């Protein structure tokens, strides 16, 4: 462990930039788990599906990752809505979500991971784009574009989702569902439809986050597991249902991880998010932005 100030400043900047990407990965969990009360631990697996779709698009048609986002995010929206319909039919309707529903998502996670191994093998896959590679520096600080692009897209996505939830009728219905499903029924709105749309948005966000992931680093099927801890840690730390909370928690986790990687070595970084999660659950389960 060799300490120096510009190492520290660089680690913090990198952490903030990484945090923007983590926010994109975690916003889906904030919607699904925080607002809809659906514990979708397969969310990171959907993300990896997005990464592989970007790889397929680039490898077969020469799609830029941004073209892949425009093509595959709507697909995620429709798939997510259909998926929620099936989940509702088999589990929510019967009141089985706490045991069977949770195990169901675990099974889906496992099927996706092994399915990707069977199709693509365990090799790392990556894409090429003009912004993957170059870096830019201001004084002592240097940031690479492949980190900066996901940071900006992540921030934009969070802002868009926040605007949608607070300004549109459906968005407000989703927020109302997160507070009281029965009250939503009483005022004549359909909570199931609102949940379906919200789940679709969350799945689309997973696809986009996966495409951002393959811009940052090469991916392999089991990499999604690391994001279970990260996304749930962010969601809980941010107060489960809060979009601004998700952003702040993502930045905290990003900085905590890069500091750990810089000063203790990368092999400790998987423990950071889960450690943070355990500490939050033990001492402040409502999170920093919790009600």
């Amino acid at each position, binding site marked *: 462990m060799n300490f120096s100030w510009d190492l520290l400043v660089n680690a913090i900047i990198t952490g903030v930039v990484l945090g923007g990407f983590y926010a994109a990965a975690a916003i889906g969990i904030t919607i699904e788990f925080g607002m809809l009360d659906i514990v979708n*631990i397969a969310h990171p697996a959907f993300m990896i599906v997005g990464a592989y779709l970007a790889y397929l698009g680039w490898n077969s048609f020469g799609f830029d990752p941004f073209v892949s986002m425009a093509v595959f995010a709507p697909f995620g929206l429709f798939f997510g809505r259909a998926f929620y319909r099936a989940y509702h039919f088999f589990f929510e309707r019967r009141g089985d979500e706490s*045991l069977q529903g949770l195990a169901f998502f675990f099974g889906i996670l496992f099927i996706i*991971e*092994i*399915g990707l191994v069977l199709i693509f093998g365990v090799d790392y896959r990556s894409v090429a784009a003009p912004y993957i590679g170059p870096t830019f520096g201001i004084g002592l600080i240097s940031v690479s574009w492949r980190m900066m692009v996901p940071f900006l897209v992540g921030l934009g996505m969070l802002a868009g989702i926040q605007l949608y939830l607070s300004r549109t009728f459906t968005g407000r219905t989703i927020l109302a569902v997160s507070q009281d499903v029965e009250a939503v029924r009483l005022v004549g709105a359909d909570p199931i439809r609102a949940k379906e749309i919200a789940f679709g948005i969350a799945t689309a966000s997973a696809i986009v986050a996966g495409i951002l992931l393959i811009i940052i680093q090469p991916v392999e099927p089991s990499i999604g597991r690391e994001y279970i801890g990260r996304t749930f840690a962010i969601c809980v730390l941010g107060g489960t249902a809060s979009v601004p909370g998700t952003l702040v928690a993502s930045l905290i986790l990003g900085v905590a991880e890069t500091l750990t990687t810089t000063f203790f070595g990368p092999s*400790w970084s998987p*423990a950071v998010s889960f450690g943070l999660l355990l500490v939050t*659950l*033990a001492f402040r389960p409502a999170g920093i932005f919790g009600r």
Partner: protein
Amino acid sequence: MSAQTAYEPRKSTLVPARLRSGAAIALVGTILVAATMLFGSGVSEYYYLAAYSILQFIVLGTAWNILGGYGGYVNFGTAGFFAAGCYTTIVLNKLFQLPLLVDMSAAAAIAGLMGFGTGYLTLRLRGVFFSIATLAMAIVLQTVVINWSFVGGGRGVYVVRPEISGLFASYAHLLVTLMIALATCAVLAAWAVEKSWIGIGLAAIRDNETAAETSAVPSLRLKLIAATMSGALMGMAGAPFPYYVSYVDPATAFSLAIAVNSIAMPLVGGTATWWGPVVGAILLGSVQQILTVTISSAANLFIVGVLLVVFLTAAPRGVVGVVRAWKRGRP
């Protein structure tokens, strides 16, 4: 039988009715242990390896079911408890060379304490937080092991099997006999929990925790008892594993396949009774053994995942539920 009327209960039975299935478990277990010890010396090593992995999953599935099936709290971190048992044996083996039964007791103590600790921190919150915390615990533990060079770190470690005593033909023979005994104990423990006030309280918690607490069910205490027992049994299942494979690395000990299997087996078998996980483990365990030989090990894990999802959607009460519905359908 037919001469008896409903008003006269039979008095001359050897075992009281409420203990009958427990006695049956103990009897079957003892017979199996004795048969394996006496006649098992000539069996080919392959069958032992297959039997060992099925028995291991009976223990893991039964252990998972004590908290997950009876109490409704899903543990995603079975692999963490299992690996804690593995690495307890490895550490003790490197330091002292103790008998395996001592290793297993130590593993039970450590994994039981882990279950208690995780439970104490999160079982007061909503059930899902416990689930995520167990997953977190497994990954934190894996990171610690990867960075701990004494137990081989990420590269893994070789374990030398101790000498065997004259009763057994090979070390595999000893391990399988031991695992039959352990599986019997695990199923007996699950049966005892299910039939006692603990199981009744856990069922009340699973169905409606608020209502249970209002009716003076000591919910936190019951959940902690179940979490500790469940963790201890998982640790015991892991303790002989290093001798079984003789090379352990974190990727094997913390494998996601362990977590998936120990959830899939009770859910496929049926979570409400002690025999559900046993049926599930024998069913899925045999299917996997056959598929590993005939296709590949990645494909067989894929099929476990698919079977889990199919059972959850089509038969959410598992094989036990299907059998009961079929019985009810007949006059």
